[in-house]
């Protein structure tokens, strides 16, 4: 039984990407998805429950995360003979499940791909996501879903903290980038809760920041700053990608300087001898 469910998104590029994805998925591109697709109980209850979560977990997650989330250290054939390996989910709590399922980073198409922007698609329904979160939370005593409060936080503190802890990889305006061996996702149009969760998890190659290093108050400030980058205040009128001094310098040198040279040549006159 194959069924794909998606959350509706408003922007056109996303819609196009989504359509392409659906088309590819319908064409049965086995590499992009676990071969069996999302496995669901034939009669699915309409209210979220740990029991439903356990069933979904066993069908869709266990070939990498192990029986009851015990983890698989080295790759071994799982469902559909696809090699599976993944970290233990004991004590990761509702926080991690909420992050990975709602960003669409999980389930991962291949264990060798980065759970990141390229995997971004939500394959479970809201009911299923809630059930899985309840189930994963029941696997140990992990952290709950954080509740950042950007409303009462300080934007300037947030910028300063973001500069210290995050801007190295995510760039000053949160536009993302690269680190050797991994892709750094941009942070625009990400809900506040996802940002807070990522800081506490440290997905893929990202460092993990504990409350000792970034307090919950500081985290709210960081979230406020990241949300502010959705609509940055472009004083000059042209954002140039909000990437900072390098594109700005390129514009100055490759557009400004030639314009100046051309106008110098137009205004002046070459002296003939």
């Amino acid at each position, binding site marked *: 039984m194959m069924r794909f469910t998606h959350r509706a998104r408003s922007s056109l590029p996303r819609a196009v990407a989504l359509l392409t994805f659906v088309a590819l998925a319908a064409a049965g591109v086995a590499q992009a998805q676990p071969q069996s697709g999302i496995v669901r109980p034939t009669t699915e209850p309409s209210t979220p429950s740990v029991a439903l979560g356990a069933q979904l977990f066993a069908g869709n997650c266990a070939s990498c995360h192990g029986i009851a989330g015990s983890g698989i250290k080295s790759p071994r054939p799982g469902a559909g003979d696809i090699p599976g390996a993944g970290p233990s989910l004991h004590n990761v709590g509702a926080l991690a499940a909420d992050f990975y399922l709602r960003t669409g980073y999980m389930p991962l198409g291949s264990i060798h791909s980065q759970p990141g922007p390229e995997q971004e698609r939500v394959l479970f329904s809201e009911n299923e996501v809630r059930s899985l979160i309840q189930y994963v939370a029941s696997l140990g005593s992990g952290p709950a879903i954080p509740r950042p409060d950007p409303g009462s936080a300080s934007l300037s503190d947030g910028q300063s903290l973001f500069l210290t802890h995050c801007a190295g990889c995510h760039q000053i305006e949160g536009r993302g980038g*690269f680190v050797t061996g991994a892709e750094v996702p941009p942070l625009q149009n990400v809900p506040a809760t996802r940002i807070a969760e990522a800081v506490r998890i440290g997905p893929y190659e990202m460092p*993990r920041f504990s409350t000792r*290093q970034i307090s919950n108050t500081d985290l709210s400030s960081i979230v406020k700053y990241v949300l502010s980058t959705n609509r940055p205040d472009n004083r000059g009128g042209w954002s140039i990608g909000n990437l900072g001094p390098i594109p700005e310098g390129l514009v100055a040198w490759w557009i400004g300087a030639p314009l100046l040279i051309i106008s110098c040549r137009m205004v002046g006159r070459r002296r003939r001898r």
Partner: protein
Amino acid sequence: MKPWQWLVALLTMLRRRARRPRGGGSGPDIASGATAPPSRERIVPAGAPDRRAENLVLVLLGTASLFALGFIVVYDQFSSGALPDQLLGICLGMCLLCIGGALTVVAKRLVVTEELEDDYPEADPEQQQEIVEMIHEGGSRFTRKRLLLGAGAATGGALGLAAMTPLVSIGPLWDTGPLDRTPWHRGLRVVDEHGAPMVAADVDMQTFYTGFPEGANMEDLGAPVVIIRLDPAKLELPAGREDWAPGGILAYSKICTHAGCAIGLYRNPLFPALEPNNALVCPCHYSTFDPYTGASVIYGPAGRPLPQLPLMIGTDGYLRASGNFSGRVGPAWWAVREQPT
């Protein structure tokens, strides 16, 4: 007067000037220049009237005025928050651009120019000889000519040396010691960016910290260190550094050995079995250092490992340096590679 009245006045004045009767001269012929008194010969040849260029100037100036007025309108509107401020810049910029264009057209197509060049006068051999003789005879009172000349040369040399002395401040010329000196020494506590001493037990795995020497200048190239904690069992530090990482806590210079950028990226895999291993990465050119093996270079343009700072944990639990760096801190200079201090 209102701005539009000024504009009308300007245009009327320009129209009247254009209507004024002018001379019959239409060619570049000097003799036919009618506006100049006939008794005097013209210096600048009379150019042909160019009404099209004049019209262009008028259009450009008119457009410039419109943009200037647009600036006023935008400014008025912007105060009430109705229009974006970029329009102000566009108005002012376009106004100046049009004025510049008008001036360029005036200079290049309307003003007739004439270049005047005088020939350099020919040399007079007799005069030259006279000057040579004057110089020769003017030195008749000197008795110790050579000594005086030498004294002059010595003074000039001394003054030249004095002028060059400040160059020494640019960099160490003989004494390269400052390049090896850092604020770190045995027993110095590691503090965070706010100056609070770091407690060894508080250093978490999976994350990274920036540390500084207590009481030293944070801006010093040798001051900042990246602090991380790794599994002590997996460390493969170079020989002789066995006790440099108490409890797996490591400190490396935060200054990249390639171009001196700050190591701001720390790669920390969530699931090490499948994901790229821990690394310190420089954001400028992606030099990548392996913290398990003494920050050896695994990728990128850096030529040598990050210098490691030996650490110890004091009896009070604070993180302290137990010596100085393993190598020179800072970017590559004079092709320094792998050179121990």
